[in-house]
């Protein structure tokens, strides 16, 4: 399968340079073969383990399948899986949980990353380097370990966060064990782990803003606040859109802490879509419905990504 695709795709359409061996045609063929050879390992993996599974997911979503019977014998059910999942209150509440979770992550992360990015970029301070290293370091810690650490921090009776609440005279929330606070509590896991990464992207965006703009502005008497709103933020919009996109894609994938700590509960309050898909497929054996959920997720993400990328392109013009 891959060989056919490659030879169709790889035929070189332009001669690269003068002074090569042989005729133009043999030169092209020579380059085409090298191209196919160099591209084939990566392309084979991507086709077999990414492209083909996407196509299969779409195909399975129109069938009834438990994953136990041969895939060739699954009965076609048309759109009925889609009808079933969108009629199902559990799936609808799982969509809602996902939207709230992703919304909170993006709404908190992007302003924080912008602010911290500016803090670690503009002023001179000896601790800046250390701060960015510490902030980024959480990114490399396994999500499973992050879940365990935050599980301990959230411990309602002897954890440090409950203790801090008590210290200022507030009743300590139940964090992960109450349906009203569990989802919000999970947001902290993601922010703690990813904030450094997004901050680095924001700093990279800040380095692209020409320094002369600030010089001119300060000669004109614009202060820090004015410079931030008239130069920094408008010129950072492209980077911000990009960070929103990455944060959104990353937050939608949340699975590990839910699987490890809350199992979707209490009372389905943390039943985010990744967890719901995994549970529907591997616990309930409803691969058709789980695939319909996956396809719906892909469609929504594709639309959101297209809008954000469109915004980015428009702004960069």
């Amino acid at each position: 399968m891959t060989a056919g695709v490659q030879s169709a795709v790889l035929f070189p359409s332009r001669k690269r340079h003068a002074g090569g061996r042989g005729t133009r045609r043999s030169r092209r063929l020579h380059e085409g073969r090298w191209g196919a050879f160099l591209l084939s390992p990566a392309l084979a993996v991507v086709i077999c383990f990414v492209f083909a599974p996407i196509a299969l997911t779409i195909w399975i979503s129109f069938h009834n399948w438990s994953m136990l019977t041969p895939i060739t014998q699954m009965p076609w059910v048309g759109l009925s899986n889609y009808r079933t999942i969108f009629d199902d209150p559990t799936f609808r509440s799982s969509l809602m949980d996902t939207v709230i979770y992703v919304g909170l992550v993006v709404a908190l992360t992007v302003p924080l990353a912008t602010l911290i990015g500016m803090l670690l970029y503009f002023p001179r301070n000896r601790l800046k380097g250390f701060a960015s290293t510490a902030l980024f370091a959480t990114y490399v810690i396994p999500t499973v370990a992050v879940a365990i650490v935050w599980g301990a921090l959230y411990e309602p009776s002897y954890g440090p966060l409950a203790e801090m609440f008590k210290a200022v005279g507030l009743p300590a929330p139940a964090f992960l064990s109450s349906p009203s606070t569990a989802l919000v509590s999970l947001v902290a896991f993601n922010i703690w782990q990813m904030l450094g990464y997004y901050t680095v992207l924001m700093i990279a965006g800040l380095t692209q803003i020409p320094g002369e703009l600030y010089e001119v502005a300060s000669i004109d008497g614009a202060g820090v606040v004015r410079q931030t709103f008239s130069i920094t933020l408008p010129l950072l919009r492209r980077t911000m859109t990009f960070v929103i996109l990455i944060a959104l894609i990353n937050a939608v994938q949340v699975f590990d802490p839910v699987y490890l700590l809350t199992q979707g509960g209490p009372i389905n309050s943390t039943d985010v879509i990744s967890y719901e898909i995994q549970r529907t497929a591997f616990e309930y054996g409803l691969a058709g419905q789980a695939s319909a959920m996956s396809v719906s997720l892909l469609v929504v993400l594709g639309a959101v990504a297209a809008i954000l990328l469109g915004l980015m392109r428009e702004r960069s013009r």
Partner: protein
Amino acid sequence: MSALGTASTKDLVAEDRSRTETPRRRRRRIHLSKMLISFAIGLVILFPLFPLYWLVISSLKSTHELLQAPPSWVPAHPSFGAFKEAFDAVPFAHSFFNSFAYAGTATVSVLVTSMMAGYVFSKYRFRGRDLLFWLIVATMFMPPIVTIIPLYWLISRLGLADSYLGVVLPWLANAFGIFLMRQFIGDLPDELIDAARIDGANELRILWRVVAPLMRPAVVTLGVFSFVYYWNNFLWPLTVLQTTSKYPVVLALYQLLSFNMSAQYENVVLAGALVASLPTIIVFLLAQRVFVQGIARVGVKG
């Protein structure tokens, strides 16, 4: 903290004497803003470090001390007992070996396949090149859960469920690697490669002798990224593996967590979490300057 501000404050004050403000007053204002900045940066440092501090001290506490309310902020009798228990409760040491095998194989393979593909996508011209490239890049935005069902089916069909190869096979190349390498190799001048071609070097030799040596930042960035990503990956090994002796560290940690659901072993679980995070933290600290710059560079262009 105040010492940080003074040196450069003096210069600033000297420059701006002519302003209407008295030097003294201006100096105090700058001093204050410097302190505010230092304070804010202090908070930024505290945010990632406090949970890590809690992780370290909790794993050094005894079970008895861990269950105290209010909690102690410094362990009274630090001991490594919990670490020993973590290694006794689950085959932690073996799972380390497994994780190194999975993440190591995946990282080396991703580096090789991405460099080859990135070279073709940036330096070759053929019909459909950009379409194919952007199709691959688009899959970067796809949550892995979306393909988990057919992927599991495929690996089972190949007879690779519950095997080393089954875990690693889908990890041998990834879209991010191809994307990153295409960007970095694309920045190399074409003349460099053309010159090597005229000298009669074949493409593999050019890639290995001309391109690769100039790709150190890309290799470090992608290498660290892949190692961390595959070391930390939980969903896929959870899906393919049944035999505990093949578990990577994150699954051993999960095992530890489910064995010790009762609070009295929390120090053991936390000790496990600390140990499981060490390799990626060490790799990151060793490579951090190049890695962070690399990530930033990919971000700026992407």
